[in-house]
């Protein structure tokens, strides 16, 4: 498809169904994320949050449906997308320095046969400064704490200078200071006009951190501005049996 389809939407998903071993885990997803928002994807365990991100990125083949990023198929929009996988998905004992990992963010753009040079290293250093890890560039990644690992992964995404960022549970298992730093970093990205999509697990902080919300439980339960979507009815629909836990939440918009 050469013509742009919904170019004014940062991420447009239509009728996406994804199966694992012939059993659908995502059902007929219609999703629109406007540009310039910081969006959270929330839902109970097994709701398919990570799968949704992976399907959007083309890492998991869909049974049906299609995805457009700024009007283009994902394969043609790769340069405008950055992805931060779950921290535990890689072996942190790998022999690499912090700078090596950040430079990997530029490998796709560099293309075949070209090595990262001085310009790339400067970009990597700048990205590390953004996440406050500039003094760690030469450290082996095996010596980092969990929060530092997460910052390095985010720096790897920032160095891509993408317009659309996907982050899979970036706040899982990091300390409170790191979490606050990550949130303000991502808000700064949004304020610079970028679109940020975060798989998030902590309902307590949704209203404070995000301005757009997607509630998922194998189907889209609700999507839209946080103030409109973050309602008890929607939570009940998404979390069902887990609502007892949620009952204690304050449903206020103290963002």
């Amino acid at each position, binding site marked *: 498809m050469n013509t742009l389809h919904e170019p004014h939407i940062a991420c447009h998903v*239509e*009728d996406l*169904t994804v*199966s694992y071993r*012939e*059993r*659908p885990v995502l*059902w*007929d997803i*219609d999703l629109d994320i406007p540009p310039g928002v910081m969006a959270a994807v929330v839902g*109970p*365990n*097994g*709701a398919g949050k990570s799968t949704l991100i992976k399907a959007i990125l083309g890492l998991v083949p*869909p*049974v*049906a*449906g*299609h995805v457009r990023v700024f009007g283009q198929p994902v394969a043609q929009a790769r340069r405008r997308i950055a992805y931060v996988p779950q921290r535990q998905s890689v072996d942190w*004992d790998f022999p690499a320095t912090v700078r090596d990992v950040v430079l990997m963010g530029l490998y796709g753009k560099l293309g075949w046969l070209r090595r990262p040079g001085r310009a790339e290293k400067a970009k990597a250093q700048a990205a590390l400064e953004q996440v406050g890890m500039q003094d760690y560039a030469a450290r082996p990644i095996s010596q980092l704490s969990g929060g530092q690992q997460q910052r390095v992964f985010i720096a790897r995404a920032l160095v891509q200078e993408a317009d659309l960022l996907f982050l899979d549970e970036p706040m899982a298992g990091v300390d409170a200071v790191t979490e606050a730093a990550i949130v303000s970093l991502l808000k700064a990205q949004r304020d610079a006009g970028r679109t940020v999509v975060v798989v998030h697990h902590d309902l307590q902080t949704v209203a404070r951190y995000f301005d757009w919300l997607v509630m998922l*439980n*194998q*189907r889209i339960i609700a999507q839209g501005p946080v103030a409109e979507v973050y309602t008890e009815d929607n939570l009940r629909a998404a979390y*069902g*049996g*887990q609502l007892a836990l949620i009952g204690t939440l304050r449903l206020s918009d103290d963002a």
Partner: protein
Amino acid sequence: MLDAVALMILGTGALVAISGALLGTFLVLRGESMSGDAISHAIVLGIVLAWMLTGARAGVLPVAGAVLAGVGAVFGAQALARSKLLGQDAATGIVFPAMFALGVLLINLNARNLHLDIDTVLLGEIGFVWLNTVTIAGIDWPVAGVTLAAVGAVNVAVVALFWKEWKIAAFDPGLASALGLKPGAMGFLLLALTAATAVAAFDAVGVVLFLAFLIVPAVTGRLVAASVGGMLSVALLSGLAAVGIGYAAAFRADVSLGGGMALATGLGLLLALVASPRSGVVAAWVRRRALREEGLVAVLIAHLSAHEGTAEEAEESGPAALVGHLGWRPAHAQAVVAAALDRGVIRREGERLSLTEAGRALARAEVRRNDRRRALAD
């Protein structure tokens, strides 16, 4: 005509197959197939060291040495991996070749005294078991066969005795230890028996071919049967069949009898891969087709149901939406629509598709099923 020599060879092979199936079933279930590989190599060092220390070439001492070496290789690799300096795979890939290399080197250096041919260690020659016999009750029995029978009897006894414990330990070590069944000790016993059997078998078939009898029939059983008992039965059957078929074929082609038997275990596996009703290629293909069709019809129903009564209903329920939005190829979309019409879950009015009452019920049932599954998962 089966003469005494052929009977000895076939009997020895059958004993290897029986012990291999008994132990292999549990090794495969526990995900420790490659421990079998490590053990069968490491025993060589144990045998040589036992000989160098005690001068014994047969009997209990070499077997004890081999068992120590075999179990030591597996546990050594596990201990090494616990240091987190290298992975389990790399630890295994270093420990057992090192032990095997040392064993081979010692054999090399002591070749004049040890009379242990290194090619035999690796390949064995079941065709020559009749050269070395003992007389029991007035009949000549091959020594290898007698040893294997003794080890095999122990294997049968242990498996019968600990059947329940081994089964649970293989499926759920956590539950096994909660029940006080000592899965660690059971695992140790399994590895020790594997090492002892490998010692008894390597004169006949060599260490690598023993591995074939240990793993291939058990994997065959796993593909065919759903229960541990069924798995073991299929493993025994396919191992024994391999001995017969391999012998006949290798005899005619005048090639290594042990190699022929080991290779023949692959036939059972191939048969299972193609024709097993549980996981064979044919069955899987048929099932996948049916499932896929069902899944796709469900996708179509979900799609129509999601847009039913909304403003986009008209747009979403035409064939253009199936091709444009769902991303299906036209022929593909047509097939799914035809299947759905067949099942009476949708109806067509001109260009527009809509759910029938049955289709709507199906969509609701699917939603409810998802809710229930989620509730269970939490």
